[in-house]
């Protein structure tokens, strides 16, 4: 029998997550009385900033919501406007957007795996400490991250808040020689990316299955990125325009992020959810490695997210090289657009999961109202549910330090991006 004790753990600043978050946990005996993932990132009120802005300014502004996944914000925004304005920018733009997004997946996932998550799993305080014993792993990770950044640079001139994306396409088409150079590097990175998946799968990850609903886009032909329908492992399959009919955000006292729930229940978005729902859309090379990982996919162990992330890096490297293989410079890298009044909605798959945008636009193409639902708010309820479950499974009789470590590890495995999670919308939609 373990001794009765009341634990209060506060992790005032969560390390190795993007943005500022904290955790509060109180237990009484074997019961968790309080468990709060607190997000105290001060609100930046982006939805208000967007009001009155011209549609053409939006890609620059929304990028600033998050420095880690600016491409995702730009992609959701441009697709929303193009859908409303009735513009099809054509296959070159569609392909290159995919390459750009691959760049962001690779850089974001590589950053998360190596600099944020792996130190947990291998028992180090941070990646720099870890690099002393695992120099090659860290170096491989940094190189993949750099490759992702350079892919973004190819289309965006810089990797954070890239400047190349516009509604209708791109400002600039990379030269063939620039593409050729990156193509060579992509090919060279294929074995590294494959090795990374095997390395991740071989990590000593905590076991344990949980019940949760996965949500991601699904596309009839592709692994989801810029297009598709909203689907869930519980059978949801709707157009992205119908998001508000099924998902609702609510505010809680302890957080500046709003919680997004699907029919009132927590759900998971992100790499694990995507893989769970889109296994058959992955190329054979990736599926083989996943099959050989010893993990049964779809997986119900949230810690497998790190393997999913590695698999998506592998996928993105293959996908970008597939597209860039026969690169040609188009006559124009964009299609001119004519604004229209109406509601612009789109959703794309940010590295951390589905990112939904809605803009109410007037006839001048100016934003009247904006609503953005980022992945972290969608995962927040799920993270709390996981924490509860994982702590109970782990056992509360561990030392405070061990408990704290375990909690952080759980949270981090969702790769929450707290900077994004600061600007969620009002609750008028609760009536649904």
């Amino acid at each position, binding site marked *: 029998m373990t001794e009765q004790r009341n634990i209060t753990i506060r992790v005032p600043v969560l390390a190795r997550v993007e943005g500022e978050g904290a955790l509060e946990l109180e237990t009484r005996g074997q019961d968790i009385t309080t468990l709060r993932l607190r997000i105290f990132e001060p609100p930046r009120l982006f939805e208000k900033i967007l009001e009155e802005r011209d549609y053409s300014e939006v890609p620059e502004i929304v990028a600033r919501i998050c420095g880690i996944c600016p491409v995702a914000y730009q992609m959701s925004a441009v697709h929303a406007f193009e859908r409303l304005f009735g513009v099809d920018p054509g296959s070159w733009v569609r392909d290159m957007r995919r390459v750009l997004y691959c760049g962001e997946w690779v850089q974001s996932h590589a950053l998360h795996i190596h600099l944020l998550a792996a130190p947990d799993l291998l028992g180090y305080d941070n990646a720099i400490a870890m690099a002393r014993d695992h120099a090659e792993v860290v170096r491989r990770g940094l*190189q993949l991250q750099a490759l992702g950044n350079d892919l973004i640079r190819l289309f965006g001139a810089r990797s*954070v*808040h890239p400047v190349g994306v516009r509604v209708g396409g791109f400002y600039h088409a990379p030269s063939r020689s620039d593409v050729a150079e990156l193509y060579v590097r992509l090919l060279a990175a294929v074995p590294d990316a494959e090795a990374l998946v095997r390395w991740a799968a071989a990590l000593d990850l905590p076991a344990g299955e949980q019940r949760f609903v996965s949500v991601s886009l699904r596309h009839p032909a592709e692994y989801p990125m810029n297009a598709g329908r909203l689907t869930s492992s519980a059978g949801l399959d709707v157009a992205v325009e119908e998001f508000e009919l099924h998902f609702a955000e609510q505010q809680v*006292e302890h957080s500046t992020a709003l919680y997004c729930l699907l029919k009132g229940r927590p759900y998971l978005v992100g790499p694990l959810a995507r893989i769970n729902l889109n296994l058959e859309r992955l190329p054979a090379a990736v599926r083989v490695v996943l099959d050989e990982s010893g993990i049964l996919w779809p997986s119900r162990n949230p810690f497998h997210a790190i393997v999913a992330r590695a698999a998506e890096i592998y996928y993105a490297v293959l996908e970008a090289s597939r597209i860039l293989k026969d690169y040609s410079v188009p006559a124009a890298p964009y299609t001119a657009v004519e604004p229209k009044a109406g509601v612009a909605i789109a959703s794309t798959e940010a590295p951390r999961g589905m990112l939904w945008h809605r803009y109410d636009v007037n006839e001048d193409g100016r934003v009247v109202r904006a609503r953005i639902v980022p992945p972290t708010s969608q995962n927040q309820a799920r993270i709390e549910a996981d924490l509860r479950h994982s702590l109970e499974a782990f056992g509360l009789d561990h030392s405070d330090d061990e408990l704290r470590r375990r909690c952080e590890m759980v949270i981090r495995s969702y790769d929450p991006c707290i*900077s994004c999670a600061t600007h*969620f919308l009002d609750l008028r939609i609760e009536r649904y």
Partner: protein
Amino acid sequence: MTPVAAGYKPQVAVHKFASCDGCQLAFLNLGEDLLLLSSLVEFVHFAEAGPVNPEAPVDIAFVEGSISTAKDVERIQLVRARSRFLVTIGACATAGGLQALRNLADGQAWIADIYAIPAYVESLMSSTAVAQHVKVDLELWGCPVSSRQLVAAVRALLFGVAPVEERDKVCMECKRSQIVCVMVAHGLPCMGPVTRTGCGALCPSFGRDCYACYGPAENPNTQALTRRLEGLGIAPAAIGRRFLSINNGAAPFTEAGLRLMHDHD
């Protein structure tokens, strides 16, 4: 600063306030230089990368983000008190960021508009630059700052000298890169002539107009540029929005933007 004695690793902190985290990424995106950097300095506080020790005294503090809550106001004082050399990184810390737009609007109403229960949200009505609260030793402009800027600043401080301040206009970098001027050749409303160098003239190099993410250059003639943009057929309010964007809190841009908004109400 004094030069670093052999064997001593300067203590460095990276603090975050209201921001997108993109400027800190200039460290994490250093690639293998990140390992080299961590052999030269000791990161004692850098929450996103691991170490959390916000109160440790440090030689250099990098501050990202704007001051937008009452807690921030206290925290930045503490950061200042514990740091020998304080560097603001990025538009948020240096000029209040995009979010400083609320200073020009009704901040409380904005919060009420987004949050059903505004009382839960603890936020000042304003978002301000760090220098409005404490003494800043060096400002690195840019949204985001680049790894090159950070490395140059760290290197100078390791040598014990002040980093070079970049304050020329983007046009200078644009012409050094032999980019064809997009304003002259395409009639685009480029902000380069009033914007500070540092990015490498990225936007003109992509055939598009600069949108001033590096903030105002020294001696910016915002009125002459305004007249030029009007000549290109751009509506005054649209020109105003160009000034009141990423660096809306920087004085020359605030003035130029408000002038346009008010003149043409």
